[in-house]
């Protein structure tokens, strides 16, 4: 068997910007722009996008199809996560008495696919429906800072909002919806309108062709997409296919039926790399895996115990065996894609001896010789849970074995996803510890996880409260200059590493399988489809239709 890529190479690949296939990318012969047009690219993933309607969906792949394929957002992020113009050709800000005014100047030549122009009225319509509680837009909180909107002229809209360093962030996430199609729909019915799955009308680089539920979404190039936004995409058609079973999608990728297979299993990477017609593009995603220790349990109240738990868990081994190297041992809640990531912080090592010493000093000693430590009458015994997913279950088994070596008794429990969610988000917190994944946001705000004010809220699983952390998390939401905020972010990560409210296991590296014939595919934390309009297929390798 081929060795899985080592952690070092993975990181090197990532830092290099995760471009074309690392060392496997051969220099392609030059193909002029005019010959790059044409062909069908097939993308497969195990998730069925719930809707093309911004007012309804929250799943990631729906968002990617909306924002990169069918619609246009006002702004985008570049590789450094700096906002750049997209549907809005520019924006300006002005201070007001209680905050700021933000004006977007839209391109005046972006048309809906039925020929009507996209205007500031569409943006205002979208804004108002999102703010309207009757719409029940899931991510209403995106616009929590925003108070009102005013249309200046057909292509200019001004928002009034409170100041925040991430004030632009919502607009890389929200695509305006067509008012002339959805304007007359009652807000409470917007989410379930047939627009989302049967007749979406966009204004992006691709047009909607067809949706067969459980099977595929078909899009075709929009020949009228303005040059200033990137122009007509190279591909003629983009087909999104739902393939749930990973073995099936792998064989479709290797057999050439599928061009891009999103999120392949780590154990499949070696086989994809070994095949001359396919390559793997991997990048650090927004997600990390962690163990939450319920701070209301006496066992987990002492930071020394939590630190000992982390020291006793061999996270490098977890990355190698569970992720086949596709992960980066984690040091805190800020993932490596983010500008606030603490480069110099060293993750806690795997050091069972220090763990034992820490536990001894914290008063947890095995007095009755049964191999399990205790303090007073409490035994160092707890239940670790997760939901049914092979990799999480493997993690639990490894953690159980590691912790047994330093005197913990761990019972494992795999619980159906929704019932686990009910338990961990209930006020009573009826759990000891669990293994789950967390997806960070570009506008990072960890107050929901670790702020004292959130102690009774559903996501403060650790019941962790440190006034200094509160202060830091509040301050970083007020400082617009990244270089000034950075030291505060670093201090936050240092404190969390010392106190370990969670054991951060690893940052996930997401492997996507790509056929060599698809060129110029870039993928990073912004999304798998981030440059779909630039993908092209070698003319000789296009599918032939008889």
């Amino acid at each position, binding site marked *: 068997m081929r060795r899985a890529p080592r952690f070092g190479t993975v990181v090197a690949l990532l830092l290099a910007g995760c471009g074309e296939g690392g060392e496997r990318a051969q220099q392609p012969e030059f193909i002029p722009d005019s010959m790059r047009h044409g062909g*069908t690219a*097939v993308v497969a993933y195990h998730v*069925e996008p*719930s*809707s093309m*309607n911004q007012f*309804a*969906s*929250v*799943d990631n792949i729906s968002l990617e199809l909306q924002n990169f394929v069918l619609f246009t957002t006002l702004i985008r992020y570049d590789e450094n996560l700096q906002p750049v113009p997209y549907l809005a050709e520019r924006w300006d800000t002005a201070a007001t008495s209680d905050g700021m005014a933000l004006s977007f100047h839209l391109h005046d030549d972006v048309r809906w696919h039925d020929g009507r122009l996209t205007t500031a009225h569409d943006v205002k319509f979208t804004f108002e429906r999102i703010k309207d*509680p*009757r719409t*029940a*837009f*899931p*991510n*209403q*909180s995106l616009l929590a800072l925003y108070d009102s909107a005013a249309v200046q002229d057909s292509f200019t809209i001004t928002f009034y909002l409170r100041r925040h360093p991430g004030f632009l962030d919502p607009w890389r996430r929200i695509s305006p919806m067509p008012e002339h199609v959805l304007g007359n729909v009652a807000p*409470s019915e917007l*989410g*379930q*309108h*047939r627009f*989302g*799955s*049967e007749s979406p009308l966009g204004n992006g680089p691709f047009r909607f062709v*067809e949706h067969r*539920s*459980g*099977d*595929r979404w*078909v899009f075709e190039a929009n020949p009228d997409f303005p040059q200033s936004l990137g122009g007509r995409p190279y591909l003629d058609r983009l*087909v999104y*296919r*739902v*393939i*749930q*079973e990973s*073995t*099936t*999608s*792998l*064989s*479709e990728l*290797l*057999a*050439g*039926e599928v061009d891009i297979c999103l999120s392949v299993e780590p154990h499949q990477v070696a086989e994809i790399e070994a095949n001359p017609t396919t390559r793997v593009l991997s990048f650090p995603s927004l997600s990390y895996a962690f163990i939450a220790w319920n701070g209301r349990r006496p066992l987990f109240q002492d930071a020394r115990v939590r630190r000992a738990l982390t020291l006793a868990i061999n996270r490098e081994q977890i990355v190698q065996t569970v992720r086949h190297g596709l992960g980066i041992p984690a040091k805190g809640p800020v993932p490596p894609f983010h500008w606030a990531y603490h480069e110099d912080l060293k993750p806690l090592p795997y050091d069972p001896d220090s763990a034992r010493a820490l536990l001894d000093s914290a008063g947890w000693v095995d007095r009755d010789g049964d191999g399990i430590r205790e303090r007073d009458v409490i035994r160092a015994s707890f239940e670790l849970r997760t939901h049914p997913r092979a990799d999480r279950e493997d993690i639990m088994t490894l953690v159980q074995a590691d912790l047994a070596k330093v005197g913990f008794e761990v019972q494992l429990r795999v619980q159906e*996803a*929704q*019932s686990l*969610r*009910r338990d961990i*988000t209930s006020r009573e917190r009826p759990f000891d510890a669990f293994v789950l994944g967390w997806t960070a946001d570009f506008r990072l705000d960890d107050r929901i*996880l670790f702020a004292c004010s959130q102690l009774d809220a*559903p*996501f403060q699983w650790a019941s962790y409260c440190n006034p200094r952390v509160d202060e830091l998390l509040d301050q970083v939401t007020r400082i617009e200059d990244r270089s000034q905020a950075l030291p505060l972010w670093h201090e936050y990560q240092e404190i969390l590493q010392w106190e370990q409210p969670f054991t951060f296991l690893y940052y996930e590296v997401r492997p996507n399988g790509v056929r060599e014939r698809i060129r110029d595919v870039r993928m990073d934390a912004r999304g798998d489809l981030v440059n779909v309009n630039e993908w092209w297929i070698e003319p000789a390798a296009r*599918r032939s*239709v*008889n």
Partner: protein
Amino acid sequence: MTTYIVRRLLQAIPLLLGIVTLVFIIVHAAPGDPTAMYVHPGVSPDVIEQMRENWGLDRPIHIQYLSWLRSFLTGDLGVSLTQNRPIVSILAERIPNTLILSGTSLVLIFAMGIAIGIVQAVRQHSQLDHALTLGALFIYSMPSFWLGLMLILILAYKVHLLDWWPAVLKFPASGMTSVDYDLMGGWSQLGDRLHHLVLPSIALGVASAASVARYMRSSMLEVIRQDYIRTARAKGLPERAVILKHALKNALLPIVTLLGLYIPFLFSGAVLVEYVFSWPGMGRTIVDAIYQRDYPLVMATTFIFAVLVVIANLIADILYAVVDPRIRYE
């Protein structure tokens, strides 16, 4: 006969009502609800409450049941909460797909099973009989999803690495049609569909075909020992006519009853096979709906499955009367 069919259909009504009521209770008793997939740090509890209100989940459970029942009886199946579209249009897309797959499998099961069973009975205790028995037991013991994965691995992937392997025997691993289906001509479209049907219908049907073969073998053996077969042979009929004309019809009787048993079995098997082959049918719809607690969709799909099973059983009973003149329905 007509009165019998009508009576059976009328009897099915309380049965189906009982089924949907039971399913309603069970799916609502399961932890979580359809809003759970929206529970996310960025989503405020007010939004979730509003969603529950928009979807009518804030009402007491018996009111929800009555209101669901009322619209259900008037033919309104509601809107899927996860796919955000009318359930009728989802069913209209998905039911034919499942029927195509299970129908093909059914034909395969009985055609293969009966043929193999006859051969085995006629050549009882021969080498061929033993080989087929062994093969049937081997296939019968294979779970359909595992067989599906093996078929994909070998016939949809490994053979692509062989240049000499004929293209028509390189099968697609997933979906019902190729990506370029819409751009093909009429005959290529039909060929494409059949090509996509091969692996899933084998995975779904082959184990049942093996068991049909076992039944057919023993049933045939019983029949060819009867006196009237001896008579037929004695009057000089060729063996072929004896078996196919005289013995087969009687030997088929117990097999026809299997039909009623296999159809529900096929539908439940379709859940796994559709998953493995990414076949956009009812099986996957129902499983996804259950995981996401998409109540209206769970109700509609279980109802459809129940109806299909009731109809299948009815057909089996009618067929039974057709092949066996001794059976009379009043």
